[in-house]
Protein backbone atom coordinates (compact mmCIF):
# COMPACT_ATOMS: atom_id res chain seq x y z
CA UNK A 1 0.00 0.00 0.00
CA UNK A 2 1.16 3.54 -0.76
CA UNK A 3 -0.14 6.80 0.68
CA UNK A 4 -0.59 9.90 -1.46
CA UNK A 5 -2.47 13.19 -1.38
CA UNK A 6 -5.16 13.99 -3.95
CA UNK A 7 -6.62 17.52 -3.84
CA UNK A 8 -5.51 17.87 -0.21
CA UNK A 9 -7.00 14.55 0.90
CA UNK A 10 -4.76 11.70 2.03
CA UNK A 11 -5.69 8.46 0.27
CA UNK A 12 -4.30 4.93 0.13
CA UNK A 13 -3.80 2.89 -3.03
CA UNK A 14 -2.45 -0.47 -4.12
CA UNK A 15 1.10 -0.50 -5.43
CA UNK A 16 1.21 -0.48 -9.25
CA UNK A 17 -2.25 1.04 -9.59
CA UNK A 18 -2.59 3.92 -12.04
CA UNK A 19 -3.40 7.40 -10.71
CA UNK A 20 -6.62 7.70 -12.76
CA UNK A 21 -8.19 4.67 -11.06
CA UNK A 22 -7.44 6.11 -7.62
CA UNK A 23 -8.76 9.55 -8.59
CA UNK A 24 -12.00 8.03 -9.93
CA UNK A 25 -12.42 5.96 -6.76
CA UNK A 26 -12.36 9.19 -4.78
CA UNK A 27 -15.37 10.37 -6.79
CA UNK A 28 -13.38 13.13 -8.50
CA UNK A 29 -14.62 13.73 -12.04
CA UNK A 30 -11.88 14.24 -14.60
CA UNK A 31 -12.41 13.64 -18.32
CA UNK A 32 -10.82 10.52 -19.87
CA UNK A 33 -11.89 9.43 -23.34
CA UNK A 34 -9.41 6.70 -24.25
CA UNK A 35 -9.70 4.76 -20.99
CA UNK A 36 -11.42 1.35 -20.89
CA UNK A 37 -10.90 -1.20 -18.12
CA UNK A 38 -10.66 -4.11 -20.58
CA UNK A 39 -7.49 -2.77 -22.20
CA UNK A 40 -4.10 -1.39 -21.15
CA UNK A 41 -3.86 2.39 -20.66
CA UNK A 42 -2.87 4.25 -23.80
CA UNK A 43 -2.62 8.00 -23.07
CA UNK A 44 -4.12 9.10 -26.39
CA UNK A 45 -6.66 11.73 -25.40
CA UNK A 46 -4.40 13.49 -22.83
CA UNK A 47 -7.49 14.84 -21.03
CA UNK A 48 -6.81 13.01 -17.76
CA UNK A 49 -3.69 15.18 -17.28
CA UNK A 50 -3.05 16.12 -13.63
CA UNK A 51 -0.44 18.16 -11.78
CA UNK A 52 1.93 16.22 -9.53
CA UNK A 53 4.61 17.25 -7.06
CA UNK A 54 6.35 15.99 -3.92
CA UNK A 55 7.64 17.67 -0.75
CA UNK A 56 11.17 16.69 -1.81
CA UNK A 57 10.86 18.30 -5.26
CA UNK A 58 11.48 21.82 -3.84
CA UNK A 59 8.45 23.33 -5.51
CA UNK A 60 8.97 21.71 -8.92
CA UNK A 61 5.82 20.41 -10.55
CA UNK A 62 5.06 18.08 -13.43
CA UNK A 63 2.03 17.41 -15.60
CA UNK A 64 1.32 13.75 -16.38
CA UNK A 65 -1.48 11.68 -17.91
CA UNK A 66 -2.96 10.04 -14.83
CA UNK A 67 -4.06 6.92 -16.77
CA UNK A 68 -0.40 6.06 -17.43
CA UNK A 69 1.19 7.18 -14.16
CA UNK A 70 1.55 4.56 -11.41
CA UNK A 71 0.92 5.77 -7.86
CA UNK A 72 3.97 6.75 -5.79
CA UNK A 73 4.51 7.18 -2.07
CA UNK A 74 4.03 10.81 -0.83
CA UNK A 75 2.86 12.06 -4.24
CA UNK A 76 0.82 15.28 -4.10
CA UNK A 77 -1.79 15.40 -6.88
CA UNK A 78 -3.91 18.33 -7.99
CA UNK A 79 -6.61 17.38 -10.50
CA UNK A 80 -8.09 20.84 -11.12
CA UNK A 81 -5.27 23.36 -10.78
CA UNK A 82 -5.32 26.43 -13.05
CA UNK A 83 -2.53 25.07 -15.29
CA UNK A 84 -4.25 21.67 -15.62
CA UNK A 85 -7.52 23.37 -16.57
CA UNK A 86 -5.65 25.48 -19.13
CA UNK A 87 -4.06 22.33 -20.59
CA UNK A 88 -7.44 20.62 -20.84
CA UNK A 89 -8.92 23.67 -22.57
CA UNK A 90 -6.09 23.65 -25.12
CA UNK A 91 -6.57 19.93 -25.81
CA UNK A 92 -10.33 20.38 -26.19
CA UNK A 93 -9.69 23.36 -28.48
CA UNK A 94 -7.59 21.08 -30.71
CA UNK A 95 -10.14 18.26 -30.52
CA UNK A 96 -12.89 20.67 -31.51
CA UNK A 97 -10.88 21.56 -34.62
CA UNK A 98 -10.67 17.87 -35.53
CA UNK A 99 -14.17 16.78 -34.50
CA UNK A 100 -16.29 19.97 -34.69
CA UNK A 101 -19.58 18.10 -35.16
CA UNK A 102 -19.16 15.39 -32.51
CA UNK A 103 -21.72 15.88 -29.69
CA UNK A 104 -19.46 14.27 -27.05
CA UNK A 105 -16.58 16.66 -27.83
CA UNK A 106 -18.87 19.69 -28.13
CA UNK A 107 -20.39 18.92 -24.72
CA UNK A 108 -17.06 18.25 -23.02
CA UNK A 109 -15.54 21.42 -24.50
CA UNK A 110 -18.54 23.50 -23.45
CA UNK A 111 -18.24 22.10 -19.90
CA UNK A 112 -14.67 23.43 -19.82
CA UNK A 113 -15.61 26.80 -21.29
CA UNK A 114 -14.51 26.18 -24.90
CA UNK A 115 -17.41 26.92 -27.23
CA UNK A 116 -15.54 27.31 -30.51
CA UNK A 117 -12.13 26.31 -31.73
CA UNK A 118 -9.39 28.90 -32.24
CA UNK A 119 -7.75 26.65 -34.85
CA UNK A 120 -8.86 26.02 -38.39
CA UNK A 121 -11.29 23.07 -38.41
CA UNK A 122 -10.42 20.14 -40.67
CA UNK A 123 -12.19 20.37 -44.05
CA UNK A 124 -13.97 17.01 -43.92
CA UNK A 125 -14.51 16.20 -40.24
CA UNK A 126 -15.74 12.87 -38.88
CA UNK A 127 -16.57 11.58 -35.41
CA UNK A 128 -13.41 9.50 -34.86
CA UNK A 129 -11.34 10.88 -31.98
CA UNK A 130 -8.54 8.30 -32.52
CA UNK A 131 -8.79 7.07 -28.93
CA UNK A 132 -7.88 3.57 -30.13
CA UNK A 133 -10.40 1.82 -27.85
CA UNK A 134 -11.74 -0.17 -30.84
CA UNK A 135 -8.34 -1.42 -32.04
CA UNK A 136 -7.08 -2.14 -28.53
CA UNK A 137 -10.21 -4.13 -27.62
CA UNK A 138 -9.91 -6.04 -30.90
CA UNK A 139 -6.24 -6.79 -30.15
CA UNK A 140 -6.98 -7.80 -26.53
CA UNK A 141 -9.71 -10.17 -27.71
CA UNK A 142 -7.11 -11.71 -30.02
CA UNK A 143 -8.57 -10.87 -33.44
CA UNK A 144 -6.33 -8.00 -34.64
CA UNK A 145 -8.89 -7.27 -37.38
CA UNK A 146 -8.55 -3.47 -37.44
CA UNK A 147 -5.75 -1.04 -36.68
CA UNK A 148 -4.80 2.61 -37.05
CA UNK A 149 -3.35 3.46 -40.47
CA UNK A 150 -1.26 6.42 -41.69
CA UNK A 151 0.13 9.19 -39.50
CA UNK A 152 -0.55 12.78 -38.59
CA UNK A 153 -3.67 14.35 -40.10
CA UNK A 154 -4.20 11.29 -42.31
CA UNK A 155 -4.43 8.87 -39.37
CA UNK A 156 -7.57 6.78 -39.28
CA UNK A 157 -8.93 3.45 -38.05
CA UNK A 158 -9.36 0.91 -40.81
CA UNK A 159 -9.15 -2.77 -41.70
CA UNK A 160 -6.07 -3.88 -43.71
CA UNK A 161 -5.99 -2.28 -47.19
CA UNK A 162 -9.54 -0.98 -46.60
CA UNK A 163 -10.85 -4.43 -47.55
CA UNK A 164 -13.32 -6.50 -45.47
CA UNK A 165 -11.03 -7.77 -42.66
CA UNK A 166 -10.43 -11.55 -42.86
CA UNK A 167 -9.86 -11.83 -39.08
CA UNK A 168 -13.06 -10.02 -38.05
CA UNK A 169 -15.71 -12.25 -36.47
CA UNK A 170 -18.40 -9.59 -36.23
CA UNK A 171 -18.61 -9.43 -32.42
CA UNK A 172 -19.36 -5.66 -32.58
CA UNK A 173 -17.11 -4.93 -29.58
CA UNK A 174 -15.38 -2.13 -31.54
CA UNK A 175 -18.64 -0.42 -32.50
CA UNK A 176 -20.42 -0.85 -29.15
CA UNK A 177 -17.50 0.55 -27.15
CA UNK A 178 -16.75 3.50 -29.44
CA UNK A 179 -17.25 6.62 -27.29
CA UNK A 180 -18.59 8.63 -30.24
CA UNK A 181 -20.51 5.84 -32.05
CA UNK A 182 -18.40 6.45 -35.14
CA UNK A 183 -18.10 2.78 -36.18
CA UNK A 184 -21.21 1.90 -38.13
CA UNK A 185 -22.85 -1.50 -38.62
CA UNK A 186 -26.17 -2.90 -39.72
CA UNK A 187 -28.01 -5.81 -38.12
CA UNK A 188 -31.39 -6.98 -39.38
CA UNK A 189 -31.72 -9.95 -37.02
CA UNK A 190 -30.51 -12.43 -39.67
CA UNK A 191 -27.46 -10.80 -41.15
CA UNK A 192 -24.90 -8.35 -39.80
CA UNK A 193 -22.56 -6.09 -41.78
CA UNK A 194 -19.55 -4.35 -40.20
CA UNK A 195 -16.36 -3.13 -41.89
CA UNK A 196 -18.07 -4.14 -45.20
CA UNK A 197 -17.95 -7.79 -44.12
CA UNK A 198 -21.14 -9.81 -44.06
CA UNK A 199 -21.96 -12.25 -41.24
CA UNK A 200 -24.77 -14.75 -40.69
CA UNK A 201 -26.23 -14.80 -37.19
CA UNK A 202 -26.90 -18.06 -35.35
CA UNK A 203 -30.66 -18.53 -35.14
CA UNK A 204 -32.01 -20.31 -32.04
CA UNK A 205 -33.45 -23.68 -33.07
CA UNK A 206 -36.37 -23.30 -30.67
CA UNK A 207 -37.33 -19.63 -30.53
CA UNK A 208 -35.95 -18.37 -33.86
CA UNK A 209 -34.21 -15.49 -32.09
CA UNK A 210 -30.80 -14.30 -33.38
CA UNK A 211 -27.61 -14.76 -31.35
CA UNK A 212 -23.93 -14.11 -32.06
CA UNK A 213 -22.35 -14.60 -35.50
CA UNK A 214 -21.45 -18.05 -36.82
CA UNK A 215 -17.78 -16.96 -37.13
CA UNK A 216 -17.62 -15.80 -33.49
CA UNK A 217 -19.14 -19.06 -32.24
CA UNK A 218 -16.68 -21.07 -34.36
CA UNK A 219 -13.81 -19.08 -32.84
CA UNK A 220 -15.03 -19.80 -29.28
CA UNK A 221 -15.55 -23.50 -30.09
CA UNK A 222 -12.06 -23.82 -31.53
CA UNK A 223 -9.98 -21.59 -29.23
CA UNK A 224 -11.91 -21.61 -25.95
CA UNK A 225 -13.10 -25.24 -25.82
CA UNK A 226 -16.79 -24.36 -25.66
CA UNK A 227 -18.87 -27.36 -26.88
CA UNK A 228 -20.59 -26.59 -30.19
CA UNK A 229 -24.03 -27.68 -28.95
CA UNK A 230 -24.08 -24.80 -26.42
CA UNK A 231 -24.61 -22.38 -29.31
CA UNK A 232 -27.58 -24.18 -30.87
CA UNK A 233 -30.23 -22.45 -28.77
CA UNK A 234 -30.32 -19.02 -27.11
CA UNK A 235 -30.20 -18.16 -23.39
CA UNK A 236 -34.01 -18.19 -22.99
CA UNK A 237 -34.24 -21.78 -24.35
CA UNK A 238 -31.27 -22.83 -22.19
CA UNK A 239 -33.13 -21.63 -19.09
CA UNK A 240 -36.29 -23.46 -20.16
CA UNK A 241 -34.28 -26.68 -20.65
CA UNK A 242 -32.67 -26.31 -17.20
CA UNK A 243 -36.07 -25.66 -15.58
CA UNK A 244 -37.55 -28.73 -17.28
CA UNK A 245 -34.64 -30.91 -16.11
CA UNK A 246 -34.73 -29.60 -12.55
CA UNK A 247 -38.53 -29.92 -12.52
CA UNK A 248 -38.28 -33.56 -13.60
CA UNK A 249 -35.62 -34.30 -10.95
CA UNK A 250 -37.79 -32.72 -8.24
CA UNK A 251 -40.55 -35.23 -9.13
CA UNK A 252 -38.43 -38.36 -8.57
CA UNK A 253 -39.27 -38.91 -4.88
CA UNK A 254 -42.86 -37.75 -5.41
CA UNK A 255 -43.73 -40.45 -7.95
CA UNK A 256 -42.60 -43.21 -5.59
CA UNK A 257 -44.97 -42.01 -2.83
CA UNK A 258 -48.07 -41.86 -5.05
Amino acid at each position, binding site marked *: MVTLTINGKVVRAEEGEMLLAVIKRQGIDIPALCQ*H*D*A*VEPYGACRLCMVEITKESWNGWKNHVTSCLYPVEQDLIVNTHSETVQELRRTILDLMLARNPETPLIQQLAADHGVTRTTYEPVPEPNDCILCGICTR*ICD*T*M*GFHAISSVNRGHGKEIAPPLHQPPPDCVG*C*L*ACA*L*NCPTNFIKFTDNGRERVIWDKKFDL*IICEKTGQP*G*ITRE*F*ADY*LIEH*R*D*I*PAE*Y*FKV*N*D*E*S*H*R*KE*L*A*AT*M*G*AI*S*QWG*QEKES
Partner: protein
Amino acid sequence: MNHRLIVSPLLCIGCRTCELACSFAHAVNGKPARSRIDVKDGGKKDLYVPVVCLHCEDPACAKSCLVNAITRNPETGSMDLDQDKCVKCMACVSACPFGCSLFDSQHDLVVKCDLCQGDPACAKFCPTKALVYRPIQVALRSAG
Protein backbone atom coordinates in the same frame (compact mmCIF):
# COMPACT_ATOMS: atom_id res chain seq x y z
CA MET B 1 -16.74 -18.46 2.99
CA ASN B 2 -18.25 -20.30 0.05
CA HIS B 3 -22.02 -20.26 0.17
CA ARG B 4 -24.49 -21.32 -2.50
CA LEU B 5 -28.15 -20.74 -3.25
CA ILE B 6 -30.17 -23.92 -2.73
CA VAL B 7 -33.16 -24.02 -5.09
CA SER B 8 -36.05 -26.29 -4.05
CA PRO B 9 -38.63 -26.38 -6.89
CA LEU B 10 -41.18 -28.25 -4.72
CA LEU B 11 -41.35 -25.31 -2.33
CA CYS B 12 -41.61 -22.65 -5.04
CA ILE B 13 -45.09 -21.16 -5.49
CA GLY B 14 -44.15 -19.11 -8.56
CA CYS B 15 -44.79 -15.72 -6.93
CA ARG B 16 -41.69 -14.21 -8.59
CA THR B 17 -40.85 -12.15 -5.51
CA CYS B 18 -37.23 -13.22 -6.05
CA GLU B 19 -37.25 -11.60 -9.52
CA LEU B 20 -38.55 -8.35 -8.06
CA ALA B 21 -36.02 -8.41 -5.22
CA CYS B 22 -33.22 -9.04 -7.76
CA SER B 23 -34.37 -6.22 -10.05
CA PHE B 24 -34.39 -3.73 -7.20
CA ALA B 25 -31.18 -4.99 -5.59
CA HIS B 26 -29.30 -4.43 -8.88
CA ALA B 27 -31.07 -1.20 -9.90
CA VAL B 28 -29.01 1.18 -12.05
CA ASN B 29 -29.45 4.87 -11.16
CA GLY B 30 -32.73 4.09 -9.42
CA LYS B 31 -34.18 2.15 -12.38
CA PRO B 32 -34.93 -1.55 -11.80
CA ALA B 33 -32.51 -3.80 -13.69
CA ARG B 34 -33.18 -7.05 -15.50
CA SER B 35 -33.60 -9.84 -12.96
CA ARG B 36 -30.69 -12.30 -12.86
CA ILE B 37 -33.08 -14.97 -11.59
CA ASP B 38 -35.83 -16.28 -13.85
CA VAL B 39 -38.75 -18.36 -12.57
CA LYS B 40 -39.64 -20.89 -15.27
CA ASP B 41 -42.33 -23.51 -15.74
CA GLY B 42 -41.10 -26.87 -14.39
CA GLY B 43 -43.02 -28.96 -16.95
CA LYS B 44 -46.00 -29.81 -14.69
CA LYS B 45 -48.97 -27.92 -13.28
CA ASP B 46 -48.01 -25.68 -10.34
CA LEU B 47 -44.36 -26.66 -10.57
CA TYR B 48 -41.99 -23.73 -10.87
CA VAL B 49 -38.20 -23.66 -11.05
CA PRO B 50 -36.25 -20.48 -10.23
CA VAL B 51 -33.34 -20.59 -12.72
CA VAL B 52 -30.24 -18.82 -11.43
CA CYS B 53 -26.51 -18.95 -12.13
CA LEU B 54 -24.90 -22.15 -10.81
CA HIS B 55 -21.41 -20.58 -10.48
CA CYS B 56 -19.97 -23.65 -12.23
CA GLU B 57 -16.67 -25.26 -11.34
CA ASP B 58 -15.54 -24.94 -14.99
CA PRO B 59 -17.64 -22.01 -16.22
CA ALA B 60 -18.29 -21.56 -19.96
CA CYS B 61 -18.96 -17.83 -19.42
CA ALA B 62 -15.47 -17.16 -18.05
CA LYS B 63 -13.85 -19.38 -20.68
CA SER B 64 -15.65 -17.58 -23.49
CA CYS B 65 -14.87 -14.08 -22.15
CA LEU B 66 -11.98 -12.82 -24.27
CA VAL B 67 -11.22 -9.84 -22.01
CA ASN B 68 -11.36 -11.79 -18.70
CA ALA B 69 -14.21 -9.72 -17.33
CA ILE B 70 -15.73 -12.75 -15.55
CA THR B 71 -13.65 -13.98 -12.62
CA ARG B 72 -14.27 -15.94 -9.44
CA ASN B 73 -14.80 -13.81 -6.38
CA PRO B 74 -12.46 -15.30 -3.74
CA GLU B 75 -14.73 -14.20 -0.89
CA THR B 76 -18.09 -15.56 -2.04
CA GLY B 77 -16.95 -18.15 -4.59
CA SER B 78 -19.31 -16.66 -7.18
CA MET B 79 -18.43 -15.86 -10.79
CA ASP B 80 -18.61 -12.06 -10.95
CA LEU B 81 -18.84 -9.93 -14.08
CA ASP B 82 -16.86 -6.68 -14.03
CA GLN B 83 -19.17 -4.20 -15.81
CA ASP B 84 -16.34 -1.74 -16.52
CA LYS B 85 -14.33 -4.45 -18.28
CA CYS B 86 -17.20 -5.97 -20.27
CA VAL B 87 -17.11 -5.15 -24.00
CA LYS B 88 -20.67 -6.45 -24.67
CA CYS B 89 -19.61 -9.01 -27.29
CA MET B 90 -22.34 -11.43 -26.03
CA ALA B 91 -19.94 -14.39 -25.97
CA CYS B 92 -20.95 -15.39 -22.42
CA VAL B 93 -24.66 -14.91 -23.13
CA SER B 94 -24.41 -17.36 -26.01
CA ALA B 95 -21.94 -19.76 -24.39
CA CYS B 96 -23.63 -20.36 -21.01
CA PRO B 97 -25.35 -23.76 -21.31
CA PHE B 98 -27.87 -22.71 -18.63
CA GLY B 99 -28.65 -19.27 -20.10
CA CYS B 100 -27.68 -17.46 -16.91
CA SER B 101 -25.68 -14.64 -18.48
CA LEU B 102 -28.31 -12.18 -19.63
CA PHE B 103 -28.48 -9.01 -21.66
CA ASP B 104 -30.27 -6.11 -20.00
CA SER B 105 -31.47 -4.17 -23.06
CA GLN B 106 -32.89 -1.31 -21.02
CA HIS B 107 -29.54 -0.45 -19.44
CA ASP B 108 -27.47 -1.83 -22.34
CA LEU B 109 -25.48 -4.11 -20.00
CA VAL B 110 -24.62 -7.79 -19.79
CA VAL B 111 -25.65 -9.01 -16.34
CA LYS B 112 -25.29 -12.18 -14.28
CA CYS B 113 -25.87 -13.32 -10.71
CA ASP B 114 -23.12 -12.28 -8.29
CA LEU B 115 -24.87 -13.62 -5.15
CA CYS B 116 -25.27 -9.92 -4.19
CA GLN B 117 -21.65 -9.98 -2.93
CA GLY B 118 -22.54 -12.59 -0.31
CA ASP B 119 -26.02 -11.43 0.72
CA PRO B 120 -28.53 -12.50 -1.97
CA ALA B 121 -31.72 -10.44 -1.99
CA CYS B 122 -33.74 -13.24 -3.67
CA ALA B 123 -33.20 -15.64 -0.76
CA LYS B 124 -34.06 -12.96 1.79
CA PHE B 125 -37.41 -12.24 0.14
CA CYS B 126 -38.47 -15.81 -0.74
CA PRO B 127 -41.63 -16.44 1.34
CA THR B 128 -41.48 -20.26 1.19
CA LYS B 129 -37.72 -20.87 1.55
CA ALA B 130 -37.58 -22.31 -1.99
CA LEU B 131 -34.40 -20.25 -2.23
CA VAL B 132 -32.00 -20.40 0.71
CA TYR B 133 -28.39 -19.31 1.03
CA ARG B 134 -26.29 -21.88 2.86
CA PRO B 135 -22.60 -22.84 3.23
CA ILE B 136 -21.48 -25.07 0.38
CA GLN B 137 -21.06 -28.14 2.65
CA VAL B 138 -24.72 -27.88 3.74
CA ALA B 139 -25.73 -27.33 0.11
CA LEU B 140 -23.92 -30.49 -0.99
CA ARG B 141 -25.43 -32.56 1.83
CA SER B 142 -29.00 -31.44 1.03
CA ALA B 143 -28.38 -32.41 -2.60
CA GLY B 144 -27.58 -35.92 -1.43
